[in-house]
């Protein structure tokens, strides 16, 4: 099929991969020796040191182009190369993705699915998993968000990470993440998606533990990895079940076979529930939903741009993407849909309440992310997949902006993250303040901004959809109010009021360099305007976003009696009423925040004193980590210790050492036979011969 630009779809993940390779080479041959030299360690490899170091020259030639040949304190040239290559690769990827999507958009809506098979990857019997990419409206939204936001964050990282010594390593990981994430969203089958899924998990681990000398960072990395493992296990089982049921793992095949298999009775509701719940278990791990959300707040140990890119804008939304991708499967199982919706709503309210009491600026945002992801799952659970993806997109803009803004604040305050030691930063960081304020308005759901449209769409669907219920709407609306409250609490504590900064820190406060403020500004524009593509019909828009995604979720309508994608039917006045309530709740949240943190700043401490038990409970995040520690971690550790002592030390080692001891003692005895007396050997031979002939005789007599 001649597809013009679309034939270059493979370039989208290929560019970041190229970045990984080039930056990886730089990290190994330029950065590693440089860092080792700085640390006073001998360079690796000793005698066969590579030429770029130039240390073999007796005299330093002035025109030496060795990147590491400059003095140990000036920034080596390779950093500039990395700073150009890494964002460049992602930028190129974005341009290709944009061209591909434009080319796709030129097609009629029904033909907007492009599959490019590169080569067969795993082929065994009837099983075939190719390396292939699928671009359709859903993956194109994801690809654009991932590459677009990813590019901005790469640029931002150049500024943010400029003081870091392991500069190239960071960008290798970041590019690798982009590659894996693009594999995830562009894959045309579940197995390749799983590769990307695991790849982003690996990069998440690597980047959370970027400052691996810090105990808490490496612990957080491990926690993220292990918790994700639980979810990945479910995902993998789900994929196995899919293959078992459908005989294929490719998206187009699986979804095309649904009607046939359902009618023939192979695909029962129970099987659909099993598959979708297993997939959803994977989603709860990756997208930090109850009960597997605990890793995400800890993941804030990583550098802030990483938090923005991986743990807010892209990777954690992979679960939502996967659920939306599998929407046809989920719609087969009303039970699974209810589970998704309830988990989503519960996570949204649960983590929002935790966010109220956090003092670490990044942790507030982390819980906010968990909460917003809950919204997206709520949307998916009530069948409003388009609304979920819409919120995914707008959330990517404003949450990335919030993280980058907080990173800018942290950067300016020399690494301070505690909001109790901020205040009044507005004066020093005007650009950061303005952009972040816009994002805060967006996330709070102030009409006209992106967050308003997507969040309101979700709330409306959760009320009006056949899968929804007023209870879900109520929880969502309440969570929206809390979101507005804690976000404005963050803004007030950070940017307003008097300074509570260390005087030492305050002297050095400065606005960030352009590489950081420009991405902030672009994201701010997107946060404000990003929602305008999905203005609902009731507000005079035509919801172009939902229309764009319609071909993907067409099966939603086709799947049967659920008119889930139709939002405007019940009553326009009801929709306006609910909209008004949610805006009112948001404004109330802002008002309370203003009251508590601007007018009566002594009040919060007073409230905390008034209900110490409740405050403690929320402050300690409902003791979930402690409960997990007690109920799961301790059990696993005890079990492992038992296995180690009983099984490994006694059983396995017993076998191995027993064999060795047996051979040794046997040898000790057999050794005496080897007396060196030739006659003895001759006798042994004879005895053997006698026995052998005797055996032959015996056999000849006993047939």
């Amino acid at each position: 099929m001649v597809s013009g630009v679309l034939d270059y779809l493979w370039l989208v993940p290929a560019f970041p991969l190229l970045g990984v390779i080039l930056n990886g080479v730089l990290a190994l041959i330029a950065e590693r020796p440089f860092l080792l030299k700085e640390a006073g360690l001998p360079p690796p490899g000793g005698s066969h040191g590579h030429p770029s170091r130039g240390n073999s020259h007796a005299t330093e030639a002035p025109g030496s182009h060795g990147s590491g040949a400059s003095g140990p304190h000036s920034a080596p040239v390779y950093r500039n190369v990395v700073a150009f290559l890494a964002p460049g690769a992602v930028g190129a990827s974005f341009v290709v993705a944009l061209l591909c999507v434009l080319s796709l958009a030129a097609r009629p809506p029904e033909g907007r699915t492009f599959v490019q098979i590169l080569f067969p990857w795993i082929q065994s019997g009837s099983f075939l998993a190719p390396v292939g990419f699928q671009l359709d409206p859903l993956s194109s939204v994801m690809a654009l968000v991932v590459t677009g936001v990813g590019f901005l964050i790469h640029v931002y990282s150049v500024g943010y990470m400029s003081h870091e010594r392991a500069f190239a390593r960071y960008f290798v990981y970041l590019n690798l993440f982009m590659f894996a994430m693009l594999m995830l969203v562009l894959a045309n089958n579940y197995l390749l998606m799983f590769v990307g899924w695991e790849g982003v998990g690996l990069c998440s681990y690597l980047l959370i533990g970027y400052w691996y000398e810090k105990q808490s960072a490496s612990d957080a990395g491990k926690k993220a990895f292990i918790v994700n493992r639980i979810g990945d296990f479910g995902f993998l089982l789900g994929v196995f079940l899919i293959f078992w049921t459908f005989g294929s793992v490719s998206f187009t095949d699986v979804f095309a076979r649904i009607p046939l298999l359902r009618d023939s009775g192979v695909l029962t509701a129970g099987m659909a529930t099993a598959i979708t719940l297993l997939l959803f278990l994977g989603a709860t791990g990756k997208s930090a939903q109850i009960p597997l959300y605990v890793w995400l707040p800890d993941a804030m140990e990583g550098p802030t741009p990483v938090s923005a890119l991986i743990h807010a804008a892209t990777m954690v939304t992979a679960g939502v993407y996967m659920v939306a991708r599998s929407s046809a499967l989920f719609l087969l199982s009303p039970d699974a849909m209810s589970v998704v919706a309830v988990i989503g709503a519960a996570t949204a309210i649960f983590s929002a309440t935790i966010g109220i009491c956090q003092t670490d600026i990044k942790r507030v945002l982390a819980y906010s992310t968990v909460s917003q992801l809950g919204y997206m799952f709520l949307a998916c659970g009530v069948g409003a997949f388009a609304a979920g993806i819409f919120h995914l997109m707008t959330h990517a803009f404003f949450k990335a902006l919030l993280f980058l803004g907080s990173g800018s604040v942290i950067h300016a305050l020399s690494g301070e993250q505690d909001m109790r030691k901020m205040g009044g930063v507005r004066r020093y960081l005007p650009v950061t303040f303005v952009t972040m304020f816009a994002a805060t308005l967006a996330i709070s759901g102030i009409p006209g901004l992106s967050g308003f449209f997507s969040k309101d769409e979700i709330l409306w669907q959760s009320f009006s959809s056949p899968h929804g219920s007023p209870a879900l709407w109520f929880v969502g609306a309440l969570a929206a109010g809390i979101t507005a409250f804690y976000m404005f609490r963050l803004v007030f504590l950070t940017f307003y009021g008097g300074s509570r900064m260390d005087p030492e820190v305050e002297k050095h406060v400065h606005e960030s360099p352009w590489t950081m403020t420009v991405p902030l500004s672009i994201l701010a524009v997107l946060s404000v305007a990003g929602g305008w593509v999905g203005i609902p019909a009731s507000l005079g828009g035509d919801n172009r976003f939902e229309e764009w995604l319609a071909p993907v979720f067409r099966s939603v309508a086709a799947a049967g009696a659920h008119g889930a994608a139709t939002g405007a039917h019940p009553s326009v006045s009801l929709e306006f009423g609910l909209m008004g309530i949610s805006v009112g709740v948001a404004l109330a949240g802002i008002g309370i925040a203003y009251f508590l943190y601007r007018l009566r700043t002594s009040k919060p401490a007073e409230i905390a004193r008034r209900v110490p038990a409740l405050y403690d409970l929320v402050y300690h995040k409902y003791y979930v980590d402690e409960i997990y520690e007690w109920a799961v971690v301790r059990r696993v550790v005890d079990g492992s210790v038992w296995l180690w002592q009983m099984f490994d030390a006694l059983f396995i080692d017993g076998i191995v050492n027993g064999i060795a001891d047996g051979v040794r003692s046997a040898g000790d005895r057999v050794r005496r036979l080897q007396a060196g007396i030739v006659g003895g050997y001759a006798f042994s031979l004879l005895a053997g011969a006698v026995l052998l002939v005797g055996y032959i005789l015996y056999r000849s007599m006993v047939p």
Partner: protein
Amino acid sequence: MIEPPAYLLLSAILFGIGVVGVVARRNILIILMSVEVMLNGVNVAFVAVGSYLGDATGGIFAFMVMTVAAAEAAVGLALLIALYRIRETIDITELKVLKW
């Protein structure tokens, strides 16, 4: 008329006598000669069976055995001479160097 088992019995007796010489004697020279007796016992069996079966292979095997016997005698006696030069003995029980 002599039956094949008679030759085989003779072969076994010759071989057994040779074995007795190998395991019971201490004189290396006599042990080597006993080995020749054993080989001759085997040859009797080869030749007899070969001729009863009308197959030349038995004779060929006996021929090979003789060749090996000659080689064995040559090397064995050379070893004996070398040993006698060093140890001044032809007593097999005094050879215990195989034990470490």
